[in-house]
Each structure stands twice: as C-alpha cells, then as structure tokens.
C-alpha cells in the first residue's frame, strides 16, 4: 500500500496527524464538499489537486476553522476535535498561508509576525526579542528574512516567506499552503520548494493546495484529487505521472501541447515606436520601446516581472500616459486617444489583475459582461438598459466560454471562483471580436483544464486573422503559443525570436538583458 516516506509515528498511537472524515459542506445552490475524506501523515507533503471551484479551498477553510462543516469529523493526532475558529486551529498547531497574503504593508516584518500575540513587558512590546527569535527561525529554515524590513519594500516571494514565518512563530506543526506559487516567479518557486523540503526535514507536515502538476511531481509524496466537491482518489506521486493526475482532475484526457498550424502574418495592426513612459513611482519604465504586431499572429512578450510590461500594457490601452513616442493602431495614431476610443476601434484587454481591473465584483456576471458596451444598442436605448438583451448576451458568453457559477448570469462576480472569473473576462473580451487582443497573464492561477481552454481561444483568435499580444511571466506559455517572442528588459526591446529557432535558455538570457542570448 502506501509507502511511508517520513512517517514516524512518534510514540503516541496515531497513524495520521490530520484526518478529515466524510466532510460535507454546502452553500446556497452548491455542494462545495461532498463527503470528502483526506488523511495527512506526519512529515509528508500531501497535495490537494483540483480545478478551480472543485472545493479545495473550502475544505481547507473547514480545517482552519473559517467554515463549519454540515457533517463529518476532523481528527488531529488521532483525537476528534471541533475547530470552531482559526484560534482553535492555531492551538492545534495548524497554520495556513493564504493565496492572498494578509499583511500590514507599512509594518515591519517583525511587527507583522507578532501581530496578535505581541510579547510584552507591561505596556511595551519586546520587539527586539521577537526580532531575534524571527531571525533564528529564519536561519533554521533557510528563509533569509530581514526582521526589520517593511512589507511594502520587499518582494512578493519575501512576503510569502513572512507568512510562513508567521506560522512557524506560532509553533505550527501542520502547514497549509493555498496555491503558493501562483504569485511567484520561476526562481522564487524553486526557492519555495527548498523551503518546503527544509520544513519537512524539521518535522513539519504540509498540505499543498495546487493545480500545478509539475510542482506536485517535484515535491509532494501523495496527492488527493478532488473534482466537483468529491474525492476522485489518492495516489502516490512517485507511482504516477502528470497526464494521469490531469485526467483524474479534469475527468478527461488533457492535451498539454497547443495545436497550431503555421500561418503567414498579415498587415500590421499595432506599431509601437520609441515609446517612453514613467512608472507609478515616476521612474522611467519604458525607454524607447518598439514593437509591431500583425494580423494573424500571436506575439509573446517575455520578461522578468517589473521590466516595464505593466506600464507598456497600460500605455497601449490608455490607462497610462505616454511621455513620448507613438502608438499606431490600424495605421492611425492613437497615442493620445481615450480608453473608450481604443476599445471602439477594436482593442481588447485581458488585464493582469482580474479583481482590480477586470471585474466589478459587486455587479452580477451579466452586468460585468456589458462593462464596455452598456451604452450601445441593443444593450441600452435612449439611456435605458435593456435587461433582456443583457441577459441574452450573458447566456451566450456563459455557454461559449463555460463560465460556471451557482446562480448563472445573476451570480455576483464576487462569488465566482478565480478560474471562472478569468473565463468570464476572456469571454467578454473575445466576444467583442477585437482586432487586437492584449492578454496579460491570461492563465495566471488557473488549472490545467482552464489553461488549455484559454490557450485554445487565443490561438483561435489568431487563426481568424486577428492579432494577439500575449504578455506572460510563464515562459512555457510564451514558448507554446507565440509566433514571435519579443523580450523586454529594463523597458527596452532586447530582441525578437521565433520559438522554433530559440530555446528557454536563450530567452532566459535575453530576459536578463543580454541581447541575442549571448553566444547565439
């Protein structure tokens, strides 16, 4: 049966450090967890794999005391427990790193970590001692954290390590990671894997919520697959492969490669010349950037995060002012046009931050689908909305793009899972039939099924003779989809390569600013 990778049953009489047995949790209109059981051994990494909306996060929220299950039992170290709130979970040694970090940005790392259990003498906080302990913990687990740095000054990867330290500071034995790599760069992901290995070495147990098969294969011992609220099965990672896990997760065979026929690119759609722009902190972010995108091609923009991609997209879509240079769209200078003019001319934008830019979370899905076109017929006439047409529009997009929600078109956007929110945005933008689709990190944080789907849609745009500018931090995605790869570094175009004539290594060097990949 199961191998026992690190499973030392330390004297006391239990096999599993955590058992969730027959957990059922329903929300209005949806059964999020349907009789789910999972078991975590001491000293192992158990992956929880499932598509967005499969019920992974709900299950972990139950374990962490954020939700109460309708039925089922939780056992910790063999004893049945009632976890009524997160404090109880903390006392039991359960800690959670949430997908969206919960940190105070203008506090130091130490202040963030001790928040809620500040060590004090009288009215004073023993901040130095706390910092010392954090430093020790940081060294013990190889976290490399400066206790005195402020959160707003450190990278996303570092912020995540602060979240990990928060748990360690509270003596957590069982660590839950909720989609921990969604926000990290490839380098940071490797660092995180090392940290997780260190944690196991020091006797911790980990539940890893993810939908990234590569990571599971790299680090997890066992993997429990959940689909639509039910457990499909638990496998030993060493005895399976990515394709098999993907099939269990999605319920059908999944193709990893993108089907793309060769195709000649047509006329120039977008022409960027010598573009200069400032970042939000008034530092030059684009320095003479040039690029052309043609009909019927996908141009992938590769680069390390923070090299001007965000600013470029904002200047292109009109959200940010260009300092100098020109943007021509279908031969017309649009550098100073309004956002609405650009949209009306046929530009569509899948934004980087779907919750901040892409959706009005307190609007229903059908209201979100008309965000850019509400003032046009047939969605409104003489200033009055036509609810029937709005609903019909929503039904069409929901069907075409498989957007799942509990109440259909009248669900609030807030209630959709991340993947379905993204599908809703992609659906909305493609439904405008744009000449140019600017897709920024279109599959960020999504599961294989959704990624495959969105990739197919982007290629479809290209096949229909439309232009696509794909901006992504995932090199795999850029390599798979692009007809040409443009590399940006420090706000300048380093070079353009065809994917069949280059490799990840060369692109990686170009991303570091080495023109033409050094030797190549």
């Amino acid at each position, binding site marked *: 049966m199961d191998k026992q990778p690190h499973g030392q049953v330390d004297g006391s009489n239990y096999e599993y450090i955590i058992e969730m047995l027959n957990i059922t949790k329903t929300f209005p209109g949806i059964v999020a967890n349907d009789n789910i059981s999972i078991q975590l051994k001491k000293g192992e990494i158990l992956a929880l794999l499932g598509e967005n909306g499969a019920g992974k996060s709900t299950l972990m929220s139950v374990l962490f005391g954020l939700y109460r299950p309708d039925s089922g039992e939780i056992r910790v170290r063999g004893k049945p427990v009632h976890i009524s709130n997160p404090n109880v979970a903390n006392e039991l040694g359960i800690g959670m790193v949430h997908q969206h970090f919960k940190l105070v940005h203008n506090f130091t790392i130490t202040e963030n970590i001790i928040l809620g259990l500040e060590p004090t003498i009288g009215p004073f906080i023993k901040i130095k001692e706390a910092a010392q302990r954090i430093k020790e913990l940081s060294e013990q687990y190889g976290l490399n954290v400066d206790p005195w740095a402020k959160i707003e000054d450190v990278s996303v990867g570092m912020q995540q390590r602060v979240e990990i330290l928060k748990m360690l500071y509270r003596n957590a034995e069982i660590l839950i990671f909720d989609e921990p790599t969604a926000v990290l760069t490839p380098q940071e992901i490797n660092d995180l894997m090392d940290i997780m290995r260190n944690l196991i070495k020091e006797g911790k147990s980990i539940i890893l919520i993810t939908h990234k098969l590569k990571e599971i294969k790299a680090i997890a011992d066992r993997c429990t697959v959940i689909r639509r609220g039910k457990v499909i099965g638990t496998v030993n990672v060493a005895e399976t492969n990515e394709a098999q896990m993907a099939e269990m997760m999605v319920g059908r065979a999944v193709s990893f490669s993108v089907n793309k026929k060769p195709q000649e690119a047509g006329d120039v759609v977008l022409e960027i010349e010598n573009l200069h722009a400032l970042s939000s902190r008034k530092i030059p972010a684009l320095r003479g950037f040039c690029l052309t995108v043609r009909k019927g091609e996908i141009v992938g923009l590769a680069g390390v995060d923070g090299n001007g991609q965000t600013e470029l997209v904002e200047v292109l*879509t*009109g959200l940010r002012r260009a300092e100098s240079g020109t943007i021509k769209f279908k031969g017309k200078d649009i550098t100073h046009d309004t956002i609405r003019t650009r*949209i009306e001319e046929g530009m569509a934008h899948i934004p980087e931050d779907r919750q901040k*830019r*892409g959706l*009005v979370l*307190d609007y229903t899905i059908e209201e979100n689908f008309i965000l850019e076109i509400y003032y046009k017929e047939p969605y*409104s006439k003489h*200033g009055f909305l036509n609810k029937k047409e709005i609903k019909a529009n929503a039904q069409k997009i929901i069907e075409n793009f498989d957007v799942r929600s509990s109440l259909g078109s009248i669900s609030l956007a807030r209630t959709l899972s991340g993947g379905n929110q993204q599908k809703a945005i992609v659906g909305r933008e493609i439904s405008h039939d744009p000449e140019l689709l600017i897709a920024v990190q279109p599959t960020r944080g999504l599961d294989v099924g959704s990624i495959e789907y969105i990739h197919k849609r982007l290629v479809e745009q290209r096949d229909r003779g439309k232009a696509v500018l794909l901006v992504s931090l995932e090199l795999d995605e850029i390599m798979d989809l692009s007809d040409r790869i443009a590399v940006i570094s420090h706000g300048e175009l380093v070079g353009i390569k065809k994917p069949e004539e280059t490799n990840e290594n060369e692109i990686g060097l170009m991303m570091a600013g080495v023109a033409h990949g050094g030797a190549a």
Partner: protein
Amino acid sequence: MKWTKSLFTALAAVVLGLIGGALLMLVTGSNPIEGYAYLFRGGLMNMERFGNTLGSATTLILTGLSVAFAFKTGLFNIGASGQMLAGGLMATALALTLKLPKELMLPIIIVGAMLAGALWAAIPGLLKAIFNVHEVVATIMMNWIAYWMVYYTVPAYFKGPMLETESARIPDYASLRVSWLTKLFQGSYINLGIFIAIIAVIIIAIILDKTTLGYELKAVGFNRYAAEYAGINVPKNVALAMGISGGLAGLAGAAFYVGYAYNMQIGVLPAAGFDGIAVALLGANSPWGVAAAAFFFGILHSGKGYMSAMTHIPPDIGDTIIAIIIYFAATSILFENLYEKIMKKIKANKETSTEAAA
C-alpha cells in the same frame, strides 16, 4: 433574497431600538406600553398629526435619498446639511425677490434650490475627481461655508421686519404650502414637498436600476479601476454623482425652508442633513427603503412631543430610540448572519418534513 434580507435587518434594528427605548422608559419609572401608545398616537392619531409626520418625513426622505445615492456610487456625502442650506437660501432668496404667480414661482424655486444644492456638492465632487481630495473633509467644510453664508446673507438682504436672526416671512404665493393640502390634513405642516420627495424616490430608483447613467455611476462606485479600464470617465461620474446627491439635498432645503417653515433662521446647521445618514443606513441605501425609514423617523419626530406632554417621559427618549436604531442598523451584519441561520433552519425543517411525509 437580498431585498428580504435588508428588510429583515431593518426591522430587527427597529424592534431592538424600540426595546431599548422601552428599557429606558422602565428605568425612568414610566410605563413603556403607555409611552409607545402615546408616541405612535402622537404621530398618527388624526389627519393633522399624520400630516405633520409626513411633513417631517419629507425632508428626511430627500436628505436620506441624497446620502443613499452618494453611498450607492461609492461616496460619503456628509454635507447634506450644507447643501440643504444652499438650496434653502436660494429658495428663500427667490421667494422673497421674485413676484410671480404661484404656478410659475414654485417651479423656479424648486429648480433653483436643486441647482444650488447640486453646485454646493459638485465643488467637493470636482475636488475629489480632479485632486482626489476626500469628500468627507470637503463636504464638512462646505457645511460651514454654507452656515456662515446664511449667517451673513439673510440679515443683510432678506431680513424680516422684527428679528435680525431670521428672514422675512415667505409669502403665500411662494410657499410650498397649499390650502387644499393644509385643509385636508386639518392645518398641519404638510406641503407640496411630499410630492417632490415621492417623485424623487421614483426617479432615483429608476436612475439607479434601469439607466446607463446609474450603471456607470454604480460601476465607478463599486470599482473605479474596473470602470476606468472599461473606458468609463471616472472623474466625470464622481462629480456628477456628488452633483445629483447635492441636488436632492437642495430639494430638501426648499421643502424645509419654504414649505415646512415660514422663514429661514440663521445660525442653525439643519439636523435633517445628518439624520439623512441614519435614514440611508436604515433604508439600506435603497430609494424605497429610504422612504419607509424616513416615514418611521417622521412618526418618532412628530410623536415624541405628544408623548412627553401626556406622560412624564422626556421627549429625548424619541431621539434616543433613533440613536439605538442607528446603532443596530450600523451593526446590521449581526442580523444578516442571524437571518441566514433562520433561513437555513427553515429550509432544513422543510426538508425533514417533506422527507417525513415521503
């Protein structure tokens, strides 16, 4: 679903407010049943008192609507008092300057007051839109500018024959009071303002729910970044939302100073402007909810005098009840959870009973 939830929350707040008031009456040695009997009789027992209740509610509907509209569009208009003063001053000035037949006079006064209120709110609106000045600070400052403007303008240009501290009496041809209405309600304060208020409720409900204007305004209110992304002109909508909100408060000024009252007194920041916040809160920012909440507060306002006259309960109990209700309305999340629990139980019961039947 959402609608019934708001209603449940509001009713729970009201009931708890009344219970709180009852406890206070008990503590002060009075009989709460008797107290409430007089309170509600004072607000409702005959046409005159009912008319007074509607008269008080008129101002509250309009200021409540003003605050609620701003809330719906993501703004906190704490300056309804100042906008009311601006509208009231404009109405008073027009009423005491122009001499036209009543049919012409009233539309001019109403539109003038609305525009004055709109202008008074549009200034903080523009400051917010262009310079990102927080509207709470700006509208509070505008309150005091309006206060002092009235303080100097009224004695200088619109002084009555007797007192320095109030304007001349509003002539009949410029008053929102009309004889048929006064007669119908046996000489109460009720005036045409109640119709303005009801029309405003209907128009605002339509704007918010059915028009592209409301769609834009709410989109900007809920998420200005997404609105900007979609090509909606955010600064324009912020300024416009404040303008409309202020226009409603300006109408409240007209209804109050040339309808409910006979003249404009100086040195008073009208409480109705702030009560509007409570009305909006209890009415869950929905236009019809605002109308209902304003009517309820109107009963308390006009009934509390009668209650204190007939018993030993001080009239301040009425205000205390309002305060307690606001407290509970502000902590409405507690009731929402309670509501969900109750609904769940009902559903579970239903399921078990159908199972038992089957």
